[in-house]
């Protein structure tokens, strides 16, 4: 009788340890994938000054949109932003980039410019990678949320005070992305 209880306690103990480790792995997974998004976003920030340089030669720096995007980039690189603020700024940047793509339509020499074409390709690639990074993040978050809310790991999660995390909502601009890329063709 005593032996039975002892074995059961050991077994439950092992299971608890496994559960704990799994929760930690999933939490870290979420942070990891979030970091990848940040890496891709940074790639995009780095491309913006080049883009502005090339475009302003044809469009002139007075053009509002170029000013705005440079301003946004400076803002987003500040260190003291909350996650929500960052997300909003990045959405703004996506919007502005879309606007630039549309505006460029009126300048055929710009569209044929070697540097611009290269930049456009890099930008498209970065956008695709950002989308991929966000999808990976969403999968990690779903895994994590499942683990937190399902029995029995939800008990353990309660003890550790783990909170549910939010998924990345697909920006409506990203849905437009495919159409605008066709414009570029």
């Amino acid at each position: 009788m005593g032996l039975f209880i002892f074995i059961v306690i050991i077994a439950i103990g092992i299971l608890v340890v496994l559960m704990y480790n799994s929760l930690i792995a999933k939490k870290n997974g979420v942070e990891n994938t979030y970091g990848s998004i940040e890496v891709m976003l940074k790639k995009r920030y780095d491309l913006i000054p080049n883009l502005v340089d090339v475009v302003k030669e044809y469009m002139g720096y007075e053009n509002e949109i170029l000013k705005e995007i440079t301003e946004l980039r400076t803002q987003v690189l500040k260190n003291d932003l909350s996650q929500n603020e960052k997300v909003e700024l990045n959405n703004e940047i996506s919007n502005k980039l879309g606007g630039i793509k549309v505006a460029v339509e009126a300048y055929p020499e710009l569209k044929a410019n070697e540097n611009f074409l290269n930049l456009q390709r890099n930008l498209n690639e970065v956008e695709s990678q950002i989308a991929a990074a966000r999808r990976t993040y969403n999968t990690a978050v779903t895994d994590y949320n499942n683990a937190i809310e399902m029995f029995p790991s939800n008990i353990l999660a309660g003890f550790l005070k783990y909170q549910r995390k939010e998924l990345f909502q697909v920006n409506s601009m990203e849905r437009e992305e495919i159409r605008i890329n066709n414009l570029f063709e």
Partner: protein
Amino acid sequence: MNSFEIIFQELQEQVNTLESFRKKLLIKYWFIRVISYLIVFYIAYISIDNIVGMVEIINTIEDLIVIVKKMGLVSIIERMISLFKSGNLALILGNIIIPFWIYISLFFVFIFAIRLVLYYTCKALDIIIVYFSKWVLKYDLEYQKFYKDYKEKIMTKLISFFGEELNYFPDKKIKKDFFLESNLYDGPFVRYKGDDYVEGYIDKTKIIFSELNVWKKVDKNGETKVFQGLFFIADFNKQFSHKTIVREKNVFKMSKLLNFILDRIIYKYRVYLYIIIFMVTKYNFDLIHSIVIIIALVTLWTILKMLIGTRLGKAELENKDFEDLYDVYGDDQQEIRYLLTPSLMEKLVDLQLKTKYNINISFVKSKIFIAIPFAEALFEANLFESINKTLKIHYQLLELVIGIVEELDLNTRIWTKK
């Protein structure tokens, strides 16, 4: 891309020539079959009657074995026998069309042996058989020509209709290195054969494909098929550095059932399950025992789920139809999603719907590899079907394969790969 009618009109002349050739050849084929059956029956008839003849036959068979060994045909015979034994009809059909010349050669050997037998029995028939076998050989040559003509005259033109920059090599096959590079199958292979090699460009995308028939050794006497069908390689429109493999879903039936039970039934109705267990145990054990057992069972279930669910490198993707068809493995989760965009996943599902067997796909070294299995030999002229029909079948097959480039949008080069 031209519709089938236009192509057919262009090839009208060659098709008609080859069709009349085929019909003549078909008549000869049946003639040979009937005559050879008659000869065999006659031999059987006279040997039963003639006991002395039987002894001669046995001696002749020993000579025959020596002849066969000298001609190096033993292994071929063994292989044919094992094919028939294995009972795999598709295999037999697939293998008989190609080594038809072997069939003819064996027949020739048989006739040669019969000649020796008949030498002791009937001189006249012996002479008939000599001429007959010479004629059979001539038929064999014509048969070879028929096959070659179809490939050189008709297939070559057919493929050029699909793309000016495509080159067709009927006897070449994809190099083993490329096959292995796909990471879809591993060697060592006991047989690596193939033909109908096409290489070239569709607009900006380079493609290579060929028919392949690959086998590997399983144990002392067994061989198993690794892959038979069309193997397609194309330049992918995105740069990437890791490997991603999309395999047909391969869940053990048992574990699928187990998963189903765990997921749907037990989890959904777990409350009732707890109550039932509680009630049952309450009457046999005391309360603490029951609670402990319930908790143990549930935690065990959770751990089982976690262990079954997490497999290294496996990705869970968003498209449900895609997830039902395939398991995706890769070194980099993000790169997997970079390559397998929602639109590409849809297109791969559509592609799968067009083929009978499960296709396997992989992304390695900036190329996409697609392995489309088929049960029969492809792009071969058929003695028993009209050339028109054969042509149409091959046209549709080419449409499927070369169309992959359009289907998957591989010519859209808006990322850094040009």
